[in-house]
């Protein structure tokens, strides 16, 4: 098991580095000159050239990538200019390891930006995750147990409605009606726990998390319903019944244990995918998280920030994959890794 985890983590790290290279190759292949975006209105050709050099965009993509990777392990400084460091050391920004690069547009190390935006995205993802797990799995179970009845159809049907609408539509709908028009909930704005305490933090999360959750709920209802129905047809449930167990015990100990194990896998992967930022929901609610920052970085050709967020998001996805696989061996005794 330990050897298995080590192998998976090593493979994951290689994958992350490869992804950073791919992002850079795409960026360098773009016909737009990224240096142009760092050089304001009164740009002279000399200044442009100077910026390009300072950002490292004058090198071939591979050596840019090597520099970047080195920075992760040993740190780096910006701009990388020994001459300038001698003449004006105060203009050199230090970026200690693990250095994810330096954003010329916002004049900050990428890591600082990520550390600032990550809690916003992570709060949103986790709050949504809790909502959709409770509602999605709960309703899925109810629908399965009441299969074919009106309750079942109402649950599956209304889930489908949310499934059919695009995220921004649901988000805007909730925003406009619940917050602006009817004033049922306060206009959502992210407040960190440090700034406003748990209460305000949760209040700010309510609508964005609900939006995100509604997008996922439909899938989880259908998945849970299908798995519970499948488990109900299993022979071991007939055995449980033949033993004389009470129906509550049959449901919780025997049916759900069989049905929810596969759902844990899907849930872990979905959460991993969201922790690195949610583009649409953050845009709609003007949430300053990783998703929105990634969009801004991509549209302003801020390569270091783009790469940094890609790496963080990829790390979450890969970690989630590993955690889910390891978890599976824990919850399903038949699964063994070596």
């Amino acid at each position, binding site marked *: 098991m330990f050897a298995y985890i080590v192998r998976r983590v090593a493979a994951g790290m290689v994958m992350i580095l490869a992804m950073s290279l791919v992002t850079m190759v795409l960026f360098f292949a773009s016909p737009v000159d990224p240096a142009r975006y760092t050089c304001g209105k009164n740009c002279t050709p000399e200044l442009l050239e100077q910026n390009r050099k300072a950002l490292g965009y004058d090198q071939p993509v591979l050596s840019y990538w090597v520099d970047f990777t080195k920075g992760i392990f040993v740190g780096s400084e910006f701009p990388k200019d020994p001459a300038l460091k001698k003449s004006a050391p105060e203009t050199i920004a230090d970026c200690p390891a693990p250095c994810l690069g330096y954003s010329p547009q916002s004049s900050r190390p990428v890591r600082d930006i990520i550390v600032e935006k990550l809690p916003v995205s992570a709060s949103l993802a986790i709050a949504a995750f809790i909502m959709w797990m409770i509602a999605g799995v709960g309703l899925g179970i109810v629908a399965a147990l009441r299969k074919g009845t009106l309750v079942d159809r109402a649950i599956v049907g209304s889930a489908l409605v949310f499934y059919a609408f695009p995220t921004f539509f649901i988000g805007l709908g909730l925003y406009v009606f619940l917050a602006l028009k009817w004033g049922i909930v306060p206009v959502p704005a992210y407040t960190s726990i440090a700034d406003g305490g748990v209460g305000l933090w949760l209040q700010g999360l309510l609508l964005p998390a609900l939006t995100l959750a509604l997008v996922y709920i439909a899938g989880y209802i259908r998945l849970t319903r299908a798995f519970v129905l499948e488990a109900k047809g299993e022979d071991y449930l007939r055995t449980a*019944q*033949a033993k*004389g*167990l009470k129906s509550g015990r049959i449901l919780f100990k025997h049916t759900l*244990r069989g049905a929810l194990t596969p759902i844990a896998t899907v849930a872990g992967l979905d959460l991993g995918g969201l922790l690195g930022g949610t583009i649409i929901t953050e845009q709609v609610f003007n949430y300053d998280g990783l998703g929105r920052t990634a969009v801004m970085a991509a549209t302003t050709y801020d390569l270091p920030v783009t790469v940094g967020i890609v790496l963080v998001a990829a790390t979450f996805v890969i970690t989630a994959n590993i955690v889910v696989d390891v978890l599976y061996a824990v*919850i399903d005794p038949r699964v063994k890794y070596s």
Partner: protein
Amino acid sequence: MSTWVPTEGTSEALLSVRDLKVTFPTEDGLVKAVDGLTFDLNAGETLGIVGESGSGKSVTSQAIMGLHRGTRAKVEGSIGFEGRDLLKLEDEELRVMRGRDIAMIFQDPLSALHPYYTVGNQIVEAYKIHHGKTSKSAARAHVIDMLERVGIPNPQKRIDQYPHEFSGGMRQRAMIAMALVNNPRLVIADEPTTALDVTVQAQILDLLMDLQKEMNSAIIIITHDLGVVAEMADKIMVMYGGKAVEGGTADQTFYSAEHPYTWGLLQSMPRIDRERLERLQPIPGNPPSLISPPSGCAFHPRCAYRDDENLGCSTIVPEFDVQDWHPVRCLIPAPKRKAIFDTEIRTPSS
């Protein structure tokens, strides 16, 4: 000797099933899976139910366990167990009896055991549900004892293993331990060896018989194989299309079978006393539709002895013809049936 169908009202049998009918409403029509079954089983006795796939054997056993409750199936008739009609019990009354008074052994022990719980956990659960006051450690000790009795070596260690860590035969032994853990008065074994290797099958059946003697439980053993029940059972009931077509003692139904369908089963049986090269002859044709069964005798489309003109096989529904407590549902007169068996069916050595 026990009678097949006792006189009404005086039944002292452990289990007395009367005119049992189980129907399933489906899109294609009403499936009459069990259509008027009547039989008795005394304490400590073994009844073998034999029949082709789809003849209603499992549906019958599920009806006795009350496993059709809460489904769309409709169950009629009566199932007397120790003087009480199981069909009239409240759900909760029946639940308490399941596993305690009537237990079940299923065909495929791998799918019948929960893959996520240890064998011990599942058997302890079966015991504790009916022995709430017993401490965990006492229950565990009892289960270890039970595993030992069903011939599982090293039970102290095996009790904490998962079903997938057991071999097929050991799994079925564990299943038997689970069924017998509460010392039930009736055990229903639904094809308990079909999923096992041929070499293990005999061991499991022997074990079942030994334990039955020890615990004095009645057993209903369901199988496709007449040979198996001929050896083990006191009584045999042969089912075709949801009805019993022949019943009696094991000797009667095996050594002097009188129904053409039973003859077919006998001839499709692998037997050591036959020439090796002689082919097995499955009964030609398909099982009858349970939605719209054939007119007259349900077996007539496949019957080699069908005689529409003289007997009216395709028009007259044969009732049970009870001679010597050996009921047979066939229109051929009894003496002629006996003669046919003697001349055409019985093999020289039997």
